[in-house]
């Protein structure tokens, strides 16, 4: 049969002067089906399509457009021939058709046959897709081809059009080959054919003026693809630490990687801040400002000079480091410096503000992007179990430990969902539960208060220590040590207490994060309050010093004037000038010390708590009473939440401290850089994955939220000190002013025309500012209301969709109930088609006995036609194995119109051939 059909087809095609290619893309199903096909097109396909269309349009322009009628007719013809093609070929070519029928015919298809059947179906679909697209192009291509060939070519228009079309198809096929679900062998052979075809006919078509251009374009397109591929590779190579993070990800899952991605993001932000501060503040000051030792604020005072070069300077930031450009006090209040007339105080102030502005902007933008992404993949609650089932296994995992953890986490997540699902709240003892929760909260609040008080106490004590002369190393660094110890021991304590509450683990994690955050925050704020006390003390002290300095300088001048009556008194050495305490530098030093000690504690914790422990567990295990790896100490887990919170907290310190210690950001950049390598190494060498894996995308925004919160909180004290504390009188860029922000007014008055100052004074008027704030509040309110309305609409839509889905289900249910009747109908119909194919069966038997074509195969084919995607489920029910039909024999009337039906050999004629002999005949045929 196949051969015959092929012949027929060949005749048709040869009539049209076209060579057949085995893989003409035709559709099995009727053309209406194509319309239903709504699967999205592949990108490359579209691209090539567009490219070729453009190309054709160009060709078209050359020729005149007077053949529209002809075109129509030829496209019509084209279509009819195609339809014939479809009918005759019934599949893609002879081979595929056979394959399909063979598969469906077998009663119990073997595995690979089924597979190929699958493949077949998919193929058809894909091809349909292609067809759909091509249809759009068809007219275009036809017209262009016809106009192309109108002149001297020997081929007629329709042929050329068809050829063009086929070449188009082939090209598309080549470009989408990689996304076809075929075996490689098939892909390769189809690819080869398609390439040969294209190569053969491209030349034929491209004859004329377009050929060279076309070839050139093809080459360029290829080059472009290659370039894009290389560029993509290059881009991924350019992302810093991408491979490192991927490596961690493949061993520890995406949640640990999320920490490192967060760290990388933070590093990027800090680099920008670093560039801002170094480029606009520190480097101008170092290059163009007064050199070291030229004035009191830039000189180490006489009393400290003995210890200014001690090694401990590196650690407590006294001595030369204190009087360097790293700290606020070093900067001069000269209005412009250098030949550029760089306004350093102004720049210092603006950079301090823009550090916050930039950070706010970046954090909010990234939060918005995350939120966008998370809302983009909308309906969450429809497929909880399905997604857990089919997408929870991370195929990237290539490490037995990670795999074990993943199994555990999948199990727990299933259990969680089951618990959520049952929701039969079998609260066995709700009072006990409540009591325990209250108790736990009380305990934790006690812990928090205690740690807060401890810090306050320690800071107070350190103030008294700072007044004493010779204090030990411990006394000087008590605050930092206590804070680091608290940060180290409180989180595990909280975790232990939280075990009392018996929360849902996810909620428990949130609580834990919140508590640790509160601890850090409380610590930070107690620290700040103590610092404020310190500052106030310093301010009081400063007033006294100011007077002393004044009188002393005066006295010096007087005495020198009196003594030696020369015009100029010998200048006092800058190191000897009495000076105020400079509270800004003190604050800056405090922050830098805290940061550095935090870095050290973090690293030592990693080294001891992770690395040494891992070594111990690993090597002592050989000679120990119990299994150390599985038992008590075991390996450390990577503590994602603790690390992220530490990072966030550290960043808050940086934001707060960077105004008073511009060099702090540089230290932080170094810290993040080293911590990236160090922690990557530590994780890979000595950690086991965290047991509780939480979703990277969501928790990322949670971290961002924490970051935003801490950014806001760290903005407050800085803003307070800038707005309401007077700057020191003898250090820093704002010395001599009443308030730091006076620098703006000064700049406006001195550097801008008068009307700007006027405008500014109007703008700064409370009468304008208060309405502006009101307006902003109103705008926020309005936007909030709008977004809420959208949200509600969204929820409504979601609900509607859900309803629709339910309805559809119900409808289907109802449609499924009268199924028996329908099935009867089908049974009546199917023998019909079967009997049609009956005559062919005999022939097939002779020609293709090894391939064992069965009548039921045909029947399977015909039912496949009915199988639209919607009724996919029931379609399968029609493809019953042959013997089923014997139980519901077709009525005689159906058999009667086919008297000429050949009997299968080996079976005598019976009076009721359809009825009694059904089974043996079919079984024979199926054999």
């Amino acid at each position, binding site marked *: 049969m196949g051969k015959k059909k092929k012949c027929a087809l060949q005749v048709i095609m040869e009539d049209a002067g076209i060579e057949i290619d085995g893989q003409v893309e035709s559709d099995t199903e009727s053309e209406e089906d194509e319309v239903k096909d709504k699967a999205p097109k592949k990108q490359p396909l579209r691209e090539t399509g567009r490219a070729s269309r453009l190309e054709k349009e160009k060709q078209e322009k050359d020729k005149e457009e007077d053949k529209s009628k002809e075109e129509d007719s030829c496209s019509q013809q084209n279509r009819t021939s195609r339809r014939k093609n479809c009918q005759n070929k019934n599949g893609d070519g002879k081979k595929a058709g056979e394959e399909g029928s063979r598969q469906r015919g077998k009663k119990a298809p073997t595995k690979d046959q089924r*597979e190929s059947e699958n493949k077949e179906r998919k193929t058809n679909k894909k091809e349909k897709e292609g067809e759909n697209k091509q249809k759009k192009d068809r007219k275009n291509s036809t017209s262009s081809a016809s106009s192309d060939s109108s002149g001297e070519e020997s081929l007629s228009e329709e042929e050329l059009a068809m050829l063009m079309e086929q070449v188009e198809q082939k090209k598309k096929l080549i470009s989408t080959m990689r996304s076809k679900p075929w075996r490689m062998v098939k892909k390769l052979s189809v690819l080869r054919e398609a390439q040969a075809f294209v190569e053969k006919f491209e030349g034929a078509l491209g004859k004329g003026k377009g050929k060279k251009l076309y070839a050139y374009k093809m080459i360029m397109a290829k080059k472009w693809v290659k370039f894009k591929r290389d560029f993509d590779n290059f881009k991924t190579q350019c992302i810093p630490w991408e491979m490192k993070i991927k490596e961690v990800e493949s061993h520890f899952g995406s949640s640990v990687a999320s920490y490192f991605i967060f760290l990388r993001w933070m590093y990027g932000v800090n680099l920008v801040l670093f560039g801002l501060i170094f480029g606009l503040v520190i480097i101008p000051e170092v290059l163009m400002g007064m050199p070291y030792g030229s004035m009191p604020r830039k000189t180490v005072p006489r009393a400290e000079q003995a210890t200014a070069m001690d090694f401990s300077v590196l650690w407590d930031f006294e001595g030369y480091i204190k009087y360097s450009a790293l700290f606020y006090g070093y900067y001069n209040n000269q209005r412009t410096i250098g030949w550029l007339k760089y306004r350093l105080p102004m720049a210092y102030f603006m950079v301090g503000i823009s550090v916050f502005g930039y950070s706010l902007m970046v954090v909010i933008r990234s939060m918005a992007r995350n939120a966008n992404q998370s809302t983009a993949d909308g309906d969450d609650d429809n497929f909880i179990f399905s997604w857990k089932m089919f997408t929870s296994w991370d195929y990237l995992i290539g490490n037995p430990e990670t795999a074990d953890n993943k199994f555990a986490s999948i199990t727990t997540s299933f259990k969680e969902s089951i618990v959520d699902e049952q929701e039969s709240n079998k609260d066995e003892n709700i009072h006990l539960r409540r009591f325990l929760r209250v108790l736990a909260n009380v305990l934790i609040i006690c812990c928090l208060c205690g740690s807060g008080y401890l810090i306050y106490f320690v800071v107070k004590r350190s103030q008294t220590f700072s007044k004493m002369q010779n204090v030990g190393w411990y006394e000087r660094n008590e605050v930092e040590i206590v804070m680091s110890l608290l940060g180290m021991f409180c989180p595990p304590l909280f975790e232990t207490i939280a075990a009392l509450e018996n929360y849902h683990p996810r909620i428990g994690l949130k609580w834990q994060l919140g508590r640790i955050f509160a601890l850090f925050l409380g610590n930070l704020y107690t620290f700040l309050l103590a610092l404020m006390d310190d500052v106030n003390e310093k301010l009081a002290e400063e007033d006294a010093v100011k007077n002393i300095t004044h009188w002393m300088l005066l006295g010096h001048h007087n005495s020198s004037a009196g003594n030696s009556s020369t015009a100029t008194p010998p200048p006092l050495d800058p190191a000897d000038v009495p000076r105020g305490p400079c509270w800004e530098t003190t604050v800056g030093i405090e922050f830098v010390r805290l940061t550095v000690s935090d870095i050290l504690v973090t690293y030592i914790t990693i080294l001891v708590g992770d690395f040494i422990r891992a070594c111990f567990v690993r090597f002592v295990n050989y000679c120990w009473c119990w299994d150390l790896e599985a038992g008590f100490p075991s390996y450390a887990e990577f503590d994602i939440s603790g690390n992220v919170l530490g990072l966030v907290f550290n960043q808050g310190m940086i934001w707060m401290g960077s105004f008073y210690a511009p060099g702090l950001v540089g230290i932080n950049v170094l810290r993040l850089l080293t911590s990236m390598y160090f922690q990557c190494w530590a994780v890979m060498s000595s950690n086991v994955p965290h047991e509780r894996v939480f979703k990277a995308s969501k928790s990322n925004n949670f971290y961002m939220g924490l970051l935003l919160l801490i950014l806001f909180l760290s903005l407050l004290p800085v803003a307070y000190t800038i707005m309401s504390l007077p700057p020191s009188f003898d250090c820093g860029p704002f010395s001599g002013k009443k308030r730091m922000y006076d620098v703006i007014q000064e700049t406006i008055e001195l550097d801008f025309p008068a009307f700007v100052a006027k405008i500014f004074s109007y703008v700064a008027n409370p009468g304008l500012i208060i309405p502006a704030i009101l307006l902003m509040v109103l705008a926020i309110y309005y936007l909030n209301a709008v977004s809420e309305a959208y949200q509600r609409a969204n929820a409504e839509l979601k609900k509607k969709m859900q309803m629709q889905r339910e309805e559809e289900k119900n409808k289907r249910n109802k449609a499924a109930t009268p199924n028996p009747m329908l099935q009867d109908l089908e049974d009546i119909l199917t023998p019909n088609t079967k009997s049609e194919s009956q005559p062919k069966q005999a022939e097939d038997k002779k020609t293709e006995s090894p391939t064992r074509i069965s009548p039921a195969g045909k029947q399977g084919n015909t039912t496949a036609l009915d199988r639209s995607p919607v009724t996919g489920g029931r379609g399968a029910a029609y493809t019953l194995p042959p013997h089923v039909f014997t139980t519901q024999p077709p009525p005689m009337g159906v058999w009667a119109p086919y008297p000429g039906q050949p009997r299968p050999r080996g079976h005598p004629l019976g009076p009721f051939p359809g009825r009694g002999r059904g089974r043996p005949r079919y079984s024979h045929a199926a054999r």
Partner: protein
Amino acid sequence: TIFTPEQLDAYQDCTFFTRKEILRLFYRYRDLAPQLVPLDYTDKPDVTLPYELIGSMPELKDNPFRQRIAEVFSEDGDGNMTLDDFLDMFSVLSEMAPRDLKAYYAFKIYDFNNDDYICKSDLEKTVNKLTRNELTPEEVSLVCDKVIYEADVDNDGKLSLEDFQHMIVRAPDFLSTFHIRI
């Protein structure tokens, strides 16, 4: 040379890999059994590696579905792979492969009994593989029922390819998890 330039081009057209990646995959394939796999593929030697070797690759050995993956992608359906099958497998599981293609193969992987439907027994097998039989039979049954309830659009008690695709294209994690980096 291992491949002719034409072969490499063809492989590039048929997979989502670059020339270098194809060669790297070839060496990975060869490293599994250096004595079996020749260094010259220009004349297309008929070499098949048994499933035991394929399944012991570090990328696959911890995957609970490794046997199914190998079976689905192998020519003979038993998990024994030629180089072509091997390339096919990693091409589908690569980062570049489109969602539809991945969904199609994921469906086949989870369709344990090859009947073109994911029925309840397939789901049970999947759950048990995912949780290492940690759940009780009642829980497993509940989970399977829920999955069928959620994803079965046409109410025939099993998931067809359409049902599966309908469900999986909405999954946020599918593309990132159904992916092996090699």
